[in-house]
């Protein structure tokens, strides 16, 4: 009697749902384990294929074989579609093939996911430059400068900033370029080439006072750097430090005789030094002789400028110093600086400007030089740049007016 119900209980218990569920759970666990094994095999294969194809891609990219590189990276992405490095490399290969739009599509998607990626920002900036999208280019360049970079962050950021400066110079945004250069200067390390590059860029933005220390720093680190010498010479010349300019330019020309620009500038520097009556440690006799020569040179220039009262001001060449900012005791009155008036003044003063006359009246030195400067400016404005001597006189004028 008692066995019947117990057996029934057990059979009910074991034949119904709980046991079924236990069996199903066991089966599910076994299958999960089996599929886990398969999954490991699968993922390992996918990973290995992705690496193999991306390796080929890198080789092709480095060898400049962009077409196969594109295919390699596309294949690598088949096996690891979210790999940013592969996407970036693919974009770079596409850029190599000038398929800018396709590259842009990859890069902008990468940027959506990694807006802090320096490489992506820099590539996007380059594409924007190619497309003439200045605002976008500047935005991406700035992003790149403050972004995260693989490897040496500072070096990469500096490179990005240098590229931005070059772009700014290319679009004639000198002020912005100068600001970037000042920021770059603050982070410039002790690297001769880097300092020389910095100096060169300061020269390009006509910030000579910052260019000179950069070149000097470069020369301190690498004294035989010809381009730094030439750059330092130019910077010293433009800041009116002619003796220093002469030294650097002479060194540059001596070590690089083919550097005609430095040679020409050296000539001008020599002339300035030769024709400057106000330079220190000059004897009175020598000064008087220099003043007479300068005065005569100005007279020759006046005679050689036929456009007297009717002459229109000629444009000033980029290399010549500005002519219209005369100061000091030089007569800047336009009516007085007209060729005819200047000729009268010169003629009037001429008899007194001799070595003897100057010895007797040292005040004539200033008067003669002032008139010479005035003549040089007037004739440059009316007839264009003159000879090397005339240029030198103008430079001397500017130098002493500034001081």
């Amino acid at each position: 009697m008692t066995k019947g119900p117990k057996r029934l209980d057990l059979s009910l218990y074991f034949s119904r749902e709980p046991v079924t569920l236990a069996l199903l759970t066991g089966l599910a666990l076994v299958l999960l384990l089996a599929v886990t094994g398969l999954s490991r095999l699968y993922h390992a294969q996918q990973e290995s294929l992705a690496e193999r194809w991306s390796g080929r891609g890198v080789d092709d990219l480095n060898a400049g074989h962009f077409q196969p590189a594109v295919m390699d990276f596309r294949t690598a992405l088949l096996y690891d579609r979210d790999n940013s490095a592969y996407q970036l490399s693919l974009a770079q290969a596409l850029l190599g093939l000038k398929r800018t739009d396709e590259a842009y599509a990859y890069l902008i998607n990468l940027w959506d996911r990694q807006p802090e990626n320096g490489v992506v920002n820099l590539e996007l900036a380059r594409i924007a430059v190619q497309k003439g999208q200045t605002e976008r280019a500047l935005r991406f360049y700035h992003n790149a400068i403050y972004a995260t970079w693989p490897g040496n962050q500072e070096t990469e950021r500096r490179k990005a900033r240098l590229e931005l400066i070059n772009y700014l110079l290319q679009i004639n945004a000198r002020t912005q370029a100068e600001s970037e250069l000042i920021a770059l200067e603050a982070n410039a390390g002790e690297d001769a080439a880097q300092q020389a590059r910095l100096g060169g860029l300061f020269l390009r933005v006509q910030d000579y006072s910052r260019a000179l220390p950069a070149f000097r720093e470069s020369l301190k680190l690498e004294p035989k750097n010809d381009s730094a010498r030439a750059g330092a010479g130019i910077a010293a010349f433009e800041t009116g430090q002619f003796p220093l300019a002469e030294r650097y330019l002479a060194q540059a020309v001596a070590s690089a005789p083919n550097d005609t620009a430095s040679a020409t500038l050296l000539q001008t520097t020599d002339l300035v030094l030769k024709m400057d009556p106000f330079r220190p440690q000059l004897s009175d006799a020598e000064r008087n002789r220099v003043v007479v020569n300068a005065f005569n040179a100005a007279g020759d220039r006046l005679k050689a400028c036929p456009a007297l009262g009717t002459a229109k001001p000629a444009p000033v060449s980029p290399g010549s110093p500005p002519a219209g900012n005369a100061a000091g005791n030089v007569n800047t009155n336009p009516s007085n600086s007209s060729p005819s008036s200047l000729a009268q003044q010169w003629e009037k003063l001429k008899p007194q400007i001799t070595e003897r006359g100057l010895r007797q009246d040292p005040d004539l030195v200033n008067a003669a030089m002032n008139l010479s400067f005035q003549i040089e400016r007037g004739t440059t404005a009316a007839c264009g740049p003159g000879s090397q001597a005339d240029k030198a006189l103008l430079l001397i004028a500017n130098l002493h007016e500034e001081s």
Partner: protein
Amino acid sequence: MPTFTRRAELNPFPNSQPRISIEEGRSGPSTEEIAPQSAVGQTPGSSSVSVFQAFFREDRFFLILSVFIGIFSGLAVVCFRFAIDWCRIYLLGSGAVPTTWRLLAAPAVAGLVIAILAIHVFPGARGSGVNQTKAALYIYNGYIPLKTAVGKFITAALAIGSGHSLGPEDPSLQIGACLASALGRRLRLSRDHMRLIAPVGAAAGLAAAFNAPISAVLFVIEEVIGRWTAGILGSVVLSAVSSVVVTRWFLGSESLFRIPPVEMSRPSELIAYAVLGIVGGLASVAFASGIATLRPLCRKLPPWTQYLQPAIGGLLIGCIAVLGAPQVMGAGYEYIDEAMHGHFTWQFMAILALLKIIATLLSFVSGTPGGMFAPTLFIGAMLGAAVGGAEHALLPHLSWSPGTYALVGMGVLFAGFLRAPMTSVFMVLEVSGNYSIIVPVIVANTFAYVISRAMQPVAIFDALSRQDGLELPSMEEQREESILRVEDAMHPPPALVLDARDTLDRVSKLADQEKAEKVLLVRLHPSGWSSITREEVKTLIEEGKGSQTLESILAGGGQIPYLHPDHPLETALRYVDRWPLVPVVNRANLRELEGVITQHDVLERYRDFGGE
């Protein structure tokens, strides 16, 4: 008195409740259905067993089983994905663009093998799998042989892996349905649950393949089951979610495509999306017509050609690939991804859309097993991005986001070709994860659906099932079927409606005055309705109860159910044979009678409807 006895017996609401409506009445039968099962096993001394059995009633057990179905389907789909990729790597090579000889040989040779397998070993493996699942539900009581799943797995993996232009979703759906069916048979489920188990497995398979549980659930409800009930929905959702969890565990949680930011700057751009809807609708019609026309033609060819058709189809697809469009091979998800991110020109994408239609036609009509979801999405994405690109070229002020257009394009083809309008909207939302795209999707899908519906009256799945000689219910026709409601059959309220406080004498007098019908309606206090026949009134007066009120006579179970005008007419059928007159009352005021309905009214209306 006999009348009262009969009424009490028939009354489904023995515990007199103040309100009885049809909605409340529905809950009754379900408890009745459950009760006998709960009683099983109530043997002396078996309390622990009865606790289990109460917990594991079949409907609850079915829900738990749905989770297991999801897990098994998910695992199967994961293996299916591995198999497809392995087939691709070993047949086409690991490179993105295979060599020419592989492009030509792999799909052709695989086609030959597939044909032999499909004809001699796995005859049930042909087709997409959606109709087979529907057939299991409506014809075979949920039965799908497990062999079909094995066959589908092998042949579809070979086909897709070798480059046939087909997708893995529909086969996954069928594999899920097969596994569920096998499990249900093993566990000896009831016939009702056996019928439902195939769609539950189908949802799991589709969700796993698509990595999108909501779309899978909606598709199965919309296209396979065709109706919404809490029991079905619960099982389908559970299986879909559990399968997606399994798939994500093994394959990661990334969606099939990386979705770029969705852009739409101004509402006027909806016109551009409407144009996309029109183009997509026309493309859907072309695609569907191609399949509907070519498939029977291929089937009419001599039987020996069945061995060669998949191979020839594969060879032609290989030729398309060799000529410069290898993107049309296989499912093509990676290229959808590229299209979304603007890696192709719009002209090239337009060409790819056209070539993909041709390639899919070649694969599908040749009888190669595989699905149409992925090709549909591919065509939609390419077409969408191409139309968007062309529009932007013509009107540069339009915001141009290839990803947005491609996404909308996918929805458009889904609505136009597969004719699953609701799934098409939710699929795009689920895949994009961005609800701001909903308006363009709805606009474009509506145009595509309407155009497709107008130009191709029979939906593609229905056309395919009819070609196969199966009269499966058309979900689209069911959706659009006009429903008869109570208001279509009821007649106006009778002139005489009695008040429960009236005495029997007064009732008799009023009935005589108004020449009332045999059955009189009684408005109860404070609410509810009842009825009484004139014969009963007469009998009660003869028994000397003429001074009593109707309230006192009808007390204790005299209420009758009532209907509302908007109830389906079939609901009325459940009551009109038990109550000669059923009141139809206003939903806002249950004491306000809108009309009455009788069995005769219902039958008359159905007869007229049949004539229409």
